């Protein structure tokens, strides 16, 4: 009685359906600003989950600390704009590279060790970066946080103006575009030679090394790409909400929710984690919150546990075929 027995689609079809759904969702929601804001966060989570799963689902390296990269991207971009007067779009890209630097700093020592050290040391890394952000008050204003982070500047295309300051809709579609771009990067990476190496490292590190795969380099590269994408989404988040504190930017849920979304949507697929993110947001918003106004998080947690135990490959893990 699992979904995989009912329908089978390919990764590509699943991706088309997902992005098709994302495209029309605002129409379905009648452009209601409240719901749009909920799903902007869902798309950010979806994109982070895709990135997390590139590392965990494809390359087999589970991270418990992706909040580190998210927060680095968020603070990095905000500070470049607030303190150095950069254009937010340029700042977002550079902040994503800060995420890559973080990946190198933590990945270089952690990937030299075998076993669960990476998963744990990255958890510690996220904590350290958060503490640094709290304590480097001259730069980050510490626990006070950063206010008035500028929105992304309006883009003019012909007679059309895409405004990111007021319009939820443009922010929604930019988030969707970023998620699509990240998905495409991951898709093509997975289908390259490097993707084959990632898969081999996931399958069996020792054997992979024995047939010439540079295991350390493959893991580090995967982490760098994953961190880049996660930090990019962190930067987008900062310019979207205009306010950051160490607690919000490095919130543990940016580490935990991508794991949950990936488990939900299927770690063995590429698109699954973003479906998971949209689905858990939708379920939480439209079902659990409606019926259990106060305890919805609890019921939600129970549902997740049931899904994970019931179908370890995720709800769609068996429905979405690799090719």
């Amino acid at each position, binding site marked *: 009685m699992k979904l995989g027995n009912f329908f089978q689609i390919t990764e590509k079809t699943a991706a088309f359906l997902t992005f098709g759904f994302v495209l029309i969702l605002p129409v379905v929601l009648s452009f209601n600003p409240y719901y749009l804001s909920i799903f902007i966060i869902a798309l950010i989570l979806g994109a982070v989950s895709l990135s997390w799963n590139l590392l965990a689902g494809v390359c087999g390296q589970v991270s418990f600390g992706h909040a580190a990269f998210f927060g680095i991207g968020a603070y990095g971009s905000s500070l470049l704009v607030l303190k150095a007067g950069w254009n937010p779009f340029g700042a977002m890209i550079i902040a994503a590279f800060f995420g890559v630097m973080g990946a190198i700093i933590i990945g270089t020592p952690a990937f030299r060790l075998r076993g669960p050290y990476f998963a744990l040391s990255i958890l510690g890394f996220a904590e350290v970066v958060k503490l640094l952000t709290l304590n480097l008050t001259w730069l980050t204003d510490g626990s006070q946080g950063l206010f008035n982070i500028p929105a992304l500047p309006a883009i003019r295309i012909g007679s059309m103006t895409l405004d990111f300051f007021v319009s939820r809709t443009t922010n929604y579609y930019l988030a969707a575009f970023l998620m699509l771009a990240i998905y495409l990067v991951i898709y093509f990476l997975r289908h390259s*030679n490097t993707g084959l190496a990632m898969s081999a490292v996931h399958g069996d590190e020792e054997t992979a090394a024995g047939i010439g795969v*540079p295991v350390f380099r493959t893991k580090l590269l995967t982490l760098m790409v994953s961190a880049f994408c996660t930090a990019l989404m962190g930067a987008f988040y900062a310019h979207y909400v205009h306010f950051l504190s160490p607690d919000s930017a490095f919130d543990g849920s940016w580490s935990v929710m991508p794991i949950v979304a990936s488990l939900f949507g299927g770690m063995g697929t590429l698109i699954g984690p973003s479906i998971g993110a949209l689905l858990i947001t939708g379920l939480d918003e439209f079902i659990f919150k409606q019926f259990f106004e106060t305890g919805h998080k609890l019921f939600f947690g129970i549902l997740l546990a049931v899904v994970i135990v019931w179908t370890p490959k995720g709800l769609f893990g068996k429905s979405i075929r690799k090719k």
Partner: protein
Amino acid sequence: MGQDAESLDINQSPLLEVRELSRNFGGLQAIFEISFKVSPGQIVGLIGPNGAGKTTLFALLSGFLSPSGGEIQFLNSSIGGMRPDRICHLGMARTFQVVRPFPEMTVFENVKVAAIFGKHSKRPPSVVDQEVQEILESTGLFSKAGRLASSLSLPERKRLEVARTLATKPKLLLLDEVLAGLNPREVEEAIPLIRSLNNQMKISILMIEHNLRAIMGICDRLLVINFGQLIFDGLPTEAVENPEVIQAYLGEKEDA
């Protein structure tokens, strides 16, 4: 086959030369001052009782373990403690006693990743695919190319293990009990495959095997180790008459 081991040793510089190689695990001396050579073109058998240190020796040769002492020369470079992927690039590849396919990848992908990363030389994708096809044909896995490795039977997995190492284009192949767990008919099928690797693909082979009948038939030379020490190095026919070998190897068999 049939060539005198000694004459090969004299005529050619060795492919692999191991000098006083040692490795201990804490107090356990798993390998102790082992020295031997493998010349180009040879098939050398490696036998010894359970726990003698055969797999440990392979792990040392292929870079999965670092030696505690001694030297390993492969094609005139010192490779003791070198990383496994580097050693693979130099031209030595091993199979694992416990087969380890990449379960979530297809048979084709399993071999392809070895073909791409096993050698430094860059080839266009079509050439790589062609190579993979040929290896799958020669190892009898062609019809299984699209299957997930996790769905293979044990004999098929063993073939895949060999196919994958072959794709790295080794000059020296280390086979760790590839015949174990196969029924007599499957062994009969596997032996010509191993021979053809040596004859046609010009790959030298060092193979661990418990199946004595099989190894006597294939090997030019036999190494016997017991408690981490090399106790015999010579022709297979001489090994069965060597008292130390009989006591160590066959004696243990009787106890078991």
